[in-house]
């Protein structure tokens, strides 16, 4: 049994759904959940339900872990050493991608990012290569397996464990290289695209920024988020933060509904690993129909509201 740490992401003292899938990636191992930004008592039950035998709140002896990504990386390193971890996994979210890359560099240990499958015992992972055209199986030749897991790639399965809260303070200093000055809040009730279980994306056919509200109503019914194609972003209908694809975000929801998206190679690169892809487009010859699961030929301004109504 490998001692495996999982970096848990939380929001308002609740475990993010995406972290539960990462816990499942380590099923069968001795799991220590590392919590950065929540009261461990408030997340104890959930983490125990999904396999954590130990729960640690990451605290440095001094300094603010949330204001210094380098300090956060040092705290993680201290936890790896304190608990003699064989593996440490996290979510390939904005926070996870940054922290794990910092940690790999800090410890001079290999790190593999955005994996869709992880085998902790064999120290192998599977991940996208060539912008989603290829899967690579990588072997990590190191004592420690550091990896981030693509959100939603692994279905969370409960696996009850002890969930004991362990006391730990990382005896580390902030190197003072970079300081997070502020977080400019966007639309606070917006779900992060990369973590959303359902995504409804609007392409150029959406015609105007205000028409995204139609997609928001539809996504809202399914607890999902709204994305945009590059064509829609370039036309000024949506901000870059909403872009899915090659120069935007790579997403992997359970359900991806593309509305008026033509289906460029670069768009597929960002959503190909979705479980189910549905396309709605009035052009029956749109390339997207050749590479998705279900298609509806029709006007998005008729089909989407009808779908929202039906949900």
């Amino acid at each position, binding site marked *: 049994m490998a001692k495996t740490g999982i970096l848990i992401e939380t929001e308002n003292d609740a475990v993010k759904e995406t972290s539960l899938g990462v816990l499942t990636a380590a099923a069968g191992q001795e799991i220590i959940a590392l919590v950065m930004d929540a009261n461990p008592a408030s997340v104890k039950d959930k983490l125990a339900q999904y396999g954590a035998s130990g729960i640690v709140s990451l605290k440095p002896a001094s300094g603010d872990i949330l204001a210094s*990504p380098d300090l956060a990386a040092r705290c993680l390193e201290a936890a790896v050493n304190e608990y003699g971890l064989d593996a440490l996994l996290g979510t390939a979210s*904005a926070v996870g991608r*940054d922290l794990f*890359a*910092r940690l*790999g*560099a*800090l410890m001079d*240990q*290999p*790190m593999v*990012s955005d994996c869709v499958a992880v085998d902790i015992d064999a120290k*192998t992972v599977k991940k*996208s*290569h*060539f*912008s989603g*055209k*290829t*899967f*690579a*199986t990588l*072997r990590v*030749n190191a004592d420690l397996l550091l990896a981030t897991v693509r959100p939603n790639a692994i279905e969370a399965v409960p696996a009850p464990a002890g969930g004991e809260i362990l006391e730990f303070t990382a005896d580390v200093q902030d190197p003072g*290289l*970079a300081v*997070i*000055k502020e*977080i*400019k809040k*966007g639309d606070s009730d*917006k*779900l*992060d*695209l*990369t973590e959303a279980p*359902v995504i409804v994306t609007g392409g150029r056919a959406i015609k105007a920024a205000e028409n995204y509200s139609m997609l928001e109503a539809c996504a809202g019914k*399914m607890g999902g988020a709204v994305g945009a194609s590059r064509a829609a972003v370039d036309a000024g209908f949506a*901000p*870059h933060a909403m*872009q899915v694809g*090659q*120069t*935007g975000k790579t997403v992997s929801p359970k*359900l991806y509904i593309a509305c008026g998206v033509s289906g460029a*190679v670069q768009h597929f*690169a960002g959503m*190909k690993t979705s479980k*189910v892809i*549905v396309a709605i487009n009035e052009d029956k010859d749109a390339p997207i*129909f*050749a*590479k*998705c699961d*279900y*298609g*509806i*030929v029709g006007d998005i301004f008729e089909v989407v509201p*009808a*779908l929202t109504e039906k949900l």
Partner: protein
Amino acid sequence: MKIFVCVKHVPDTAANIKLAGNNGFEDSEIKFVVNPYDEFGVEEAVSLVEKNGGEVVIVTVGKAAAAATIRGAMAMGAHRAILVKTQGQFLDASLTAKALKAAIEEDGAPDLIFTGKGAVDTETFQTQYRLAAALGLPVANEVSRLRIDGGKAVAEQEVGGGDRQVIEMGLPCVIGATKGLNEPRYPKFPDIMKAKKKEIKEMDISDLGIDEAAGAVVIEHLEPVPERAGAKMIEGSVQEQVTELVRILKEEEKVI
């Protein structure tokens, strides 16, 4: 200012990748380009030097054929380049960072280093962090806004859900660029001609004392991601179509 931009020579994202053997691919027939995210780094560096003076140096670790890609980056306004030659396309991120560090240090002290946020071929998203750690410099990745101000870099990054994080670092630092930072220029014909005359200093990675085969992460196997076949088309009136779609998503696929 002396600004280095790390540029990777990668297959065009529209290229059809033909796999060869267990873990290789046919690279003779496909078009290679400047890694798309690196273009934002080149543009930012060239703009800064146009404003403040100095020079932009492209640094590439890659196969000899990368020279053509480097010309493309120099056509955007970079002054010269260094190419650390490798035998293969895939190099472990920590070895790439070691090679970049050695090439940069040999050339002189940087005021700023740009990379792209990641490479579209291997998608490892970490070389900039390893380079920064090796040089003892601060690093911020996925930067979509940047202000250089009195010896400090103030960078903005998207952190999900539309939130933006403002991070401040001293100079020199390493910046991983992404879309939103700027609009990379398209080189004009005279720029492309001028770039043909610019210097590319070449060396082998072994000259830097790095063993290309010593990477800790090994690609065991590459396989095509299965393409979906054509869509199952849902027919009927709009009402019939959405009713059937909802039934499929709930009962057959169980995704909602």
